[in-house]
């Protein structure tokens, strides 16, 4: 088991290094100069432009910039954001709680809906319910998430104004009691989390349905039914347990698409999180911040994958022996 863990860890670290290197060079290959943002004013005299580039270390050759950045990253120093003039770790740290909150809530909705829809479809394969669930799941999955977000805002904030159109909290929320403040955040969280969950629950429901149908056809399930166990017990206790291990795998995979969805949802809902920060950093060519947010996302996804691998290995000995 330890060997398995070390092997996976080494592979993850190598992948992380490759991702970071690729991102570094891809950003620098992309058209557009960070100096254009820093300089802000195209009329700056050349000596002033050079002065600014020197201040930000952009006057060095690219390999030198890369070596310095990688060495600093290994020391835990992710550099200083061009636009915020603050350490990247601090800028990310400021917005991380909001993203974690949204991602966790979105994940909860995704898994709950995916599981519920998948089970309902598997119970009566080929029925009208199964068809409708498939259509709805495919529809939600095929819609651009920003469109879903805008439609949700239109419906729940304008036509039927029961939920706020965006932001993490109300204006003046700092004057509320602690309990009211928590409820205020939940009030704002509901719609974006619902959109994230709705947009990503489709594949989970299809996966649950497929896995469950496989399991339901197996002998021990038939035996359970033959013993006269209630159908709900057969599904929830006997069948679903066998689906959970592979579900863990798809959970890790879906984390990356969830993070992608969160970026868009954060922009649409003015949610002050990592996704929006990344979006703004890309627009402004804030290299250290782009690298920092990308590195963070890569670490998060690789870490989740590693955990999922370990979980899977613990549940299924064939995996760790492979």
């Amino acid at each position, binding site marked *: 088991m330890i060997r398995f863990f070390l092997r996976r860890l080494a592979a993850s670290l190598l992948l992380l290094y490759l991702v970071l290197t690729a991102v570094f060079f891809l950003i620098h290959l992309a058209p557009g100069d960070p100096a254009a943002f820093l300089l802000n004013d195209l009329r700056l005299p050349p000596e002033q432009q050079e002065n600014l580039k020197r201040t930000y270390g952009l006057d060095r050759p690219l390999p030198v910039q890369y070596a310095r950045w990688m060495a600093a990253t290994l020391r835990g120093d992710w550099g200083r954001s061009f636009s915020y003039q603050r350490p990247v770790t601090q800028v990310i740290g400021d917005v991380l709680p909001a993203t974690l909150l949204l991602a966790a809530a979105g994940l909860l909705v995704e898994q709950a809906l995916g599981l519920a829809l998948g089970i309902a479809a598997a119970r009566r394969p080929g029925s009208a319910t199964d068809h409708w669930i498939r259509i709805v799941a495919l529809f939600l999955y095929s819609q651009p998430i920003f469109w879903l977000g805008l439609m949700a805002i239109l419906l729940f904030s304008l036509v039927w104004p*029961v939920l706020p159109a965006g932001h993490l909290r109300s204006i003046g929320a700092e004057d509320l009691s602690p309990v009211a403040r928590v409820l*205020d955040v939940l009030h704002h969280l509901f719609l974006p989390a619902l959109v994230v969950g709705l947009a990503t629950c489709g594949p989970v429901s299809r996966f649950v349905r497929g896995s469950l149908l496989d399991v339901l056809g197996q002998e021990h399930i038939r035996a359970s039914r033959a013993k006269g166990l209630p159908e709900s017990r057969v599904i929830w206790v006997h069948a679903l347990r066998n689906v959970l291990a592979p579900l863990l795998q798809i959970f890790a995979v879906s984390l990356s698409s969830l993070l992608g969805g969160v970026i868009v949802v954060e922009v649409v809902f003015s949610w002050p999180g990592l996704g929006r920060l990344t979006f703004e950093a890309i627009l402004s060519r804030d290299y250290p911040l782009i690298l920092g947010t990308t590195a963070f996302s890569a670490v998060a996804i690789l870490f989740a994958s590693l955990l999922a691998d370990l979980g899977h290995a613990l549940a299924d000995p064939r995996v760790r022996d492979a």
Partner: protein
Amino acid sequence: MLVRSARTAVLLAALPILVLTGCGSPREKGEETPPASPASGTPQRGGTAVVSWIASPTGVNELTNQGTAITTEIIRQLFLQLVQEQPDFEQHPPTMAPQLARSFEWSPDHKVLTFHLREDAVWSDGVPVTADDVRFTWQAQTDPDVAWSSAFMKKNILDAEVVDPHTVRFHFSHAYAKQVQDVNEGVILPKHAWGKIPFSKWHDSSDWFLENLVVDGPFTIGSWQPQQDVVLVRNERYWRKDRPYLDKVVIRNTPDAASQMTQLFSGDTDFIPQVQPGDIARIKADPRLDVIGYWFRLYVSLVWNSHNPLFADPEVRRALTMAIDRQKIVDTVYPDGTGRVGVSPIVQSVWAFDQTLKPLPYDPAGARRILESKGWKDTDGDGILDKGGKPFAFTLISNAGNQQRNDAGVMVQDQLRKVGIRAEPRVVEFNSLVSQAVEGKFEAMIFGFQMDTSLDMTAQFGSKSTEDGNFGSYNNPEFDRLMVEAMSKPDIRDSKPILDRIQQILHRDQPVTFLWESQRLSVVNRRIHDVKPNVLFSLFNLEDWWAGPAR
């Protein structure tokens, strides 16, 4: 059954959140709007305004926090300048209203400018604002370690001499037109507070400046939530004791334009500095909202790269302009009448615009005649003009995210095809467009330029400015000479004949085809009064805004 259970669970989980809606947030209940006064036109003290902004502010020190417009807007509410440029440039050069300086005077040779500071201006910690602060600011602005992006504007200032605590004297290397603008660029900073850390540490001290904020403007920072909102609250030590009227201004960061509109209609936002023309009809249909339009000092033009043999000849460029129906383009991209055909880099709302200039007529037949006289004929019958075996064909780039310019590109393609020219519109990402522009690696592009009131057009058309703004590499020694002459006169009004001549030369040579000038459209909830955004700042007179019954 299971689906029904799951649905019920979700709805139950949502219940406390939905119930909250009935309570409403403090803002939604309108608690902070003061009660109506008998005279609803009389400004009232108190209340909160919510401003929605696409970008988020990055810090409070304008010398090190480069970039977003909202950063500058906020900083201008925290700190004062010596004088304040006014948006009254339609009939004459803009006047400079007293701000931190009570008055100023020139030496006879126009090389020394003396400012007399207000005695009643104090920093928010009670320390008086003095000439030492002005000199300290100039030192910071010009320090290489601070590397302020506008430091070049100070290059002709030799010294900022402290005469006495309330008198400061600027010495210039020579007299020229933009002296006041150059001196006045940048807000005055608190020496006693921010002078505690050396200039070499300024780039590492963004948080420190915020934590050690001392202001002399109408507002100070109440709270600063990254990516969320910045709350401005009244600076009780502001020298105008009756301002600002509002207790609080919340500047909310809403990065998506569609979300901004939703928040406007739901009443969560009082002011949006810029809305798209396509949203105006919806806004006007809402009786709570008011649209404020003002002519922007931005002109959008079609830049011809004169290094390309297709566009090297001014006569050919004139023909291209004549082949483009600019009025139709303007009517299409600004259907509500908030745009007009451009004709000069000095836009028509500025005093120095040459009123005798008229846009070249839309005349495809005339354009074709000119092109034929230059040897461009359709010899192979494919509908495209050619010369020496080469077709008159080029790529026209515009930036992604700007629908008006993208639409204009398609219309230009269609119109030029009628005279036998093949233009291929291509939309590229903005940073990519700027890169191509700076490197001169484009054939034609649609680009917007903003003119300031100095009226210096060197950056856009000077022969040595090919990387600064003269992307089409226009090269005319007469333009260069006249521009230097116009900018060398201490009073820009004396340069009006020269500025007219420059505009006529540009009109003749058509280094660019001027497409349009447009209004900027702001929207405000009628419960907020005396909102007067202008081309200088959207929050220009924020201290005069007041909340009251809807107009």
